[in-house]
């Protein structure tokens, strides 16, 4: 059977992978399609330009806060948070 530490780290790793996949998509993948996206208009912006200038940035900010919340939940689940016993 896996120890508590191993299970905790497994969950932490899978959260890390999830976050980095989202990060990779909004850092690189979506901007490959800038020309196609520019055909769409969003708040009067060409959408491809908007994603590089604002959209991805908003995703990054929200992503970090979401990650912090999720990681706290994992820590609490195993009693590994700093306030827990």
């Amino acid at each position: 059977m896996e120890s508590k530490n191993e299970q905790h780290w497994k969950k932490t790793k899978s959260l890390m992978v999830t976050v980095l996949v989202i990060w990779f998509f909004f850092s690189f993948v979506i901007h490959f399609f800038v020309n196609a996206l520019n055909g769409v208009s969003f708040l009067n912006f060409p959408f491809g330009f908007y994603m590089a200038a604002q959209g991805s940035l908003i995703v990054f900010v929200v992503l970090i806060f979401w990650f912090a919340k999720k990681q706290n939940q994992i820590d609490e689940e195993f009693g590994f948070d700093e306030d827990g016993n």
Partner: protein
Amino acid sequence: MSGSEKKEGFINNLGKIYALYTGVFIGVVIVLAILEQLGVPDVVIGYAFIVLTVGVYALIGILSRTAQVSQYYVAGRQVPPVFNGMATASDWMSGASFVGLAGSLYILGYDGLAFVLGWTGGYVLVAVLLAPYLRKFGAYTVPDFLGTRYQGNAARVMGIVVLFACSFTYVTAQVYASGIIASRFLGLPFEVAVFFGLAGILVCSMLGGMRAVTWTQVAQYIILIIAYLVPVVILSAKVTGVPIPQLMYGDILERISALESQQGIVKSHIAPFVTYNKINFFGLIFCLMLGTASLPHILMRFFTTPSVKAARISVGWALFFIFLLYFTAPAYAAFAKYEILSNVVGKEISSLPDWVAIWGDIGLINITDTGDGILQWSEFSINRDVVVLATPEIAGLPYVIAGLVAAGGLAAALSTADGLLLAIANALSHDIYYRMINPNASTKKRLATAKVILLCVAFLAAITASTRPSDILSMVAWAFSIAASGLFVPLVLGVWWRRTTKEGAIAGMITGFVVCMFYLVVTRYFPQLGHDVFGMSVFNEANGVVRDNVGYFTIRNISAGLFGIPASFIVTYVVTLLTPKPPQEISNLVDNIRVAKGGDSTDESYREGGIASS
């Protein structure tokens, strides 16, 4: 009231204190605006802004002076996450971000957004891969972590070499920027103004170390963000009727496109991959992001939070405060371009707006007429710094706003300089002097040494800056590739791969650093050698074999990390597998930093010279 009660009172009332400070600052701006209307000359307004703001920073620096080691190195680890976020944001945003980023976006259009993306997305990596674990480890400096995780002074020294290589040119550029602003608004010769800037930096950092720098950086953030937003908000209200430039410039982009086709301009503002091809665009994003996650002066800010949980959330706040400036910069660029396309280009040269002449007189705007008296797009060129600096005049705002922008630019340069200076000086005083030369030094002696070293590094930077070294200034962008090539892999694998050995990490750091420096130095200083001996190709045949015009796979030297980072990773991986597993105590240490609970992995006795607990 005892000292510690007073301190806790201060931490609990931070919100009130900084709200009051913000109110007073806005009040001062209003008073100065009234004085200007009453006929007080511009030069007095300029003086008032510079002297008052630097005076406040000095006051904070003096009030935060400290004789405690943990206060000096990590602000006593009691900075609440939101305030650490603000301090990180002003630590991060340099004079060049404040003044130059919008101008780069004006010139590069869509391609410039690689900087906006690269300088924000890296914080995701900081939050997920590094900040909480380095906080748990409980070090004073980044080399301190490397020296412990990779058992010994070789990794520590290599960390310091990389730190110095990426931070020294950076700090020199900040001192230079503060000198430029001070000389313009105080009317001093540049060589004198540099030392004025130096004094402004030292009063913040020398007496109180990290503690003083933290509280000054929060104050500087408030000034820089107000100064950045006010002019473009007013301009947006004037042009579009809505004071939210970040939302309204979509409309402006449409008008720019219409004007561009009307005037036959080939390079469209929103067209992607014109200046940077795809490899360079995405390569630059990659290097800037990994570089962000490796810069010691940023990472060490997350050593100051009270807990691991606070360190994570603090990265979110840092990026939020950075985002406020970075998502405004493209709006600046769009409004400036619109103004120039609609009111400058295509007009008679004799009837151009006043601000063109003002900035033209000091050589930051260039107009070359071919003889028909009408200004063409190709006849107009603009220095990238003008976009932010001239916006108050473009919007027809009073001089007080120009003074506000200067105070903001100065705050940005000083806050970044403080952080960098502290990173360099702490590595030298803590890692070299205390860890390697004199582990028995008393607290008093350690702090005195730290302050003397800080002073020496600061003077060295000021003397270098006073020679106006154009090369150093253009090398700042290299810092990200250097940091990423030398530090990213050993830091991340140190936490995420228990197996990583001392030998692997050291070999990886050396390889990454050398490969990156080789590419930078050859493509910049020895293009002929690079072309003839190393088989590099020429990017733009028309320009021939000259600096910054040779390389492999069309990759520009600003993205040298594209070679250094993989090299560092491969070497670390292979050498690690060829060498025996790290000892049990290191394995335990890694397990310990992966769990938030249980206090710092290294306790006080370790920091005072003992060994790591596990």
